[in-house]
């Protein structure tokens, strides 16, 4: 099966959620984390992470600072801010509602399919 293309805006949400659950991470760490969680199902050019990071940072939802990684490498670490957490909560609610609606829509399709059979 082909990998999933990311919908517009979903990457930003994934980054926020990753930072909220994992604490401070560098760009590579975030990218790996998303790949692992998605079970390598997501088609992610790791490079696109950095565009998402700068977008989020400019909106004030995450903050960054240079630090040292576990294996002593200099890397830029990102943390979620209070505003970021609020945004994440709002986005999560939105996603849940949206997936709820989508689920019901698809269920309806299944009903007619069975009904027709």
């Amino acid at each position, binding site marked *: 099966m082909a990998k999933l293309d990311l919908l517009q805006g979903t990457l930003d949400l994934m980054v926020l959620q990753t930072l909220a659950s994992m604490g401070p991470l560098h760009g590579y760490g975030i990218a790996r984390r998303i790949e692992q969680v998605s079970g390598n199902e997501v088609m992610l050019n790791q*490079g696109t992470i950095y*565009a998402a990071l700068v977008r989020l940072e400019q909106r004030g939802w995450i903050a960054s600072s240079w630090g040292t990684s576990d294996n002593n490498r200099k890397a830029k670490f990102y943390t979620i801010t209070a505003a970021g957490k609020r945004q994440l909560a709002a986005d999560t609610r939105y996603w849940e509602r949206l997936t709820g609606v989508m689920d019901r829509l698809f269920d309806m399709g299944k009903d007619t399919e069975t009904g027709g059979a």
Partner: protein
Amino acid sequence: MSEIRRLLKRLRAFASKPSHDADLEAELAAHLELAIEDNMARGLSAVEARRVALVSLGGMEQAKDQHREARGLMKLDILLLDLKYALRTLGRDPGFTIVAVLILALAIGANVSVFSVVNTLLLRPLPFARAEQLVWIAPPPTKCGMSCATYSADAYDEFRMYSRSYQDVTGYFAFSSADNLSLNRGGVPIPATSIDVIANFFQVLGVHAAMGRTFTADDARDGAPPVVLLTNPWWKRQFAADPNIVGKAFDMNGKQTTVIGVLPASFDFGAVFAPGTKVDAITPLDLYGPPRDWGNIITFIGRLKAGVSLAQAQADAQAAAPHMCWNNKQPQSCGQYKDAVVPVPLKTYISGKLNRSLVLLWSAVGAILLIACVNLSNLLLARAAARSKEFAMRGALGASRMRIVRQLLTESLMLSGAGALVGLGLAFALITWLAHQGSIALPLLDTLRIDGAALGWTVLIAVFAAVFFGLVPGLRMAGNNVQEALKDSGPGSGHGRKHERVRAVLVVTEVALACVLLVGAGLLLRSFLKVLEVDLGFQPDRAAAVKMDYDDSAPTPLAGALKRTAIFQQVLSRVSAIPGVDAAGITDYLPLGQNRAWGTPYPKGVKPPEKAPAGPLVYVVTRGYLRAMGTRVVGRDFTWDDGPKSENVVIINQSYARFISSLAGWPNGAIGQTITSGGQDLRIIGVADDVHEESVEGQAGWQIYYSAAQQASSGAQLVLRTNLPPAVLSNSVMRTLRAINPKQPAAEFRPIQMLVEHANSPRRFFMMLVASFATLGLILAALGIYGVISYSVTRQTQEIGIRMALGAGMGQVQRQVLAGTLRLAIIGVALGAAASLFVSRMIASQLFATAPWDLETFVAMALGLLLVAAISGYIPAYRASRINPMTALRSN
């Protein structure tokens, strides 16, 4: 909220790009190292680990670009990049850049200048408050000059009383002559020109005094103390811009006259109502004094009430006309203005007749712009051909087609921007020069300036030009097949041929446009030459006039006439004695200037026709005047014996003589016959040539000359005919005049030729402009031809080399290149000539005694154009014939 914050951050990021780039660089480097380490930990080799890391990153440069796009303002970044790149490429080829900018500067400069003229004369409202409400009220144009365009003082009062559409009506005295005011501040009196206006003149126009006040009704009262308003330039020039001038009194025309105000600099009577003349002072017209009985002397200007349409005003004027009397003391003169009171917008009166000329000018510069664009398209195509590999390479490296078109458009925008800047400078110089050409009889010329509208127009045509000349080469370039372009190493390939076809089409277009311009200019030039050839009825060269001051005040009209005659006789005998003076005479009005009519004298005992034509223009002259002007007379001239006590005599012109002779049935012509005017018998003693008194180009009307010894003249112009240049006589004549009359002002010595030139100045102005535009078009077309032919010769170097190696002579090669040139030129000229036939019909009304399909002009212009084409094709042809076959074959 967060979006605004982001925008601000993006702006900041855009501004501090390098530091952000360094940060990103470090971050991505860290990313790569972390990934490689990870991969190696999973057991990959160092090389493989690095490759896999790069693959999952998805390309270093792409990651950076995405980041930059999210971070800053990528579009602006690209624009800056394009600009930098364009600057570099243009700077690398200064020859091309200079030629391109120059071509554009000339075209844009011409366009902006003409736009400013059109804007001033046609588009911008007149320099008065709510100028759209102002109307000029006059009869439809006729042959009898200002007398038929004016109304009497009685008619003025009645029109004001019976019309309903006007807030108010005003007017001015239409018969003031130049230098009618003599300012005496001790020493030689200073001549100046003043205009009498009705007291409400400035209220109606909405003009306020810059200092002091304008007139009130009281100033115009009969017997009121004399007052004057100074125009701004005169106040500055003559009174050194005295800030305390208001209230001071000066000796003007022998009367202590109080200055009550200074007019604003924006008010220029001459520019609006009498183009090409200057007015120094404004005085109130005494409507209830002697002018009451002077007949038609006032021009009407009205201000419509708010919401009144022109049609309503016209209907209203028509209804008021029957109530208007020429003179209330003559009841039969009431109603004579029927159908002769027609309001037209003041703007239409002032510049309406220039409409067509201006549209013509505008089209001419439009054609210039097109030619310039086509030329640049051609130049850019040649460059693009040379750069096709560069663009193919960029395309291969991943530049999108859009990106390449954008790059080319940036270049053309930069070129046209530079061209617009230089062109604006040219236009500024031209407009400033034009604004100071006071002698061109065009209205509002002194208000000419480069204003906001002109700047907007500049930007508009610069962008239009850039898109026009940049898009074709841009699209052609970007549309190229990458591989084909990389392979197409030059001569003989299909792609190059295609290019050449486009260029040939462009050159043909250019030649055709230049041809239309040239034919138009040629027709106008021919018209102008015909105008110069017009037999004016007088010989303007070697004649000059000077305004003469005299004092004929006397207790009775008879005594005045005797005194005047004596003065005139003395002046003429002394002036005639000056060496170099062939003839001298005095008149009150000069041709091509102001004029007046006194009604039509009819043969004695003949009933006037039902529909009476307008009367002849009246000139009160002395003996010698007609000879000094160079007007031939059959019969005899006046003599000093034709005095107040002898029989009244007149000289009339041929047209008028023909009219009354046929009316009265005189078999032997008019000489010796008697006509009557106002109960007075007039003996015709001579018939003079028809004089073009109103305009050089119009038909000559009727004229009647009275003897200055028998009729009161309004002022005196001393006219001299000399075999020396008139200016040489100036001093001795002025000395003589001053010896006779110490009050003689230092009046200007005006060659009669100047009057003619003044009358011809609008035609000369338009002709010169169109001719210079046509020349510009011709040069551009020649450049275009040269460019295309020399490009094609360069491209065919090898082919020509082979042909010469096979035995073709130099002459043969030259002939062939020339034939190619002429083929393009002939097609262009043929198309252009066909278009010209159409265009020239549209300018037919601008032509004088020249048919729009004037064969000589067409042939001359076509041959001229072909000759220029041949010359610009001959240079590359000559070069082609000098190709060394060996070198040509070896090169590539």
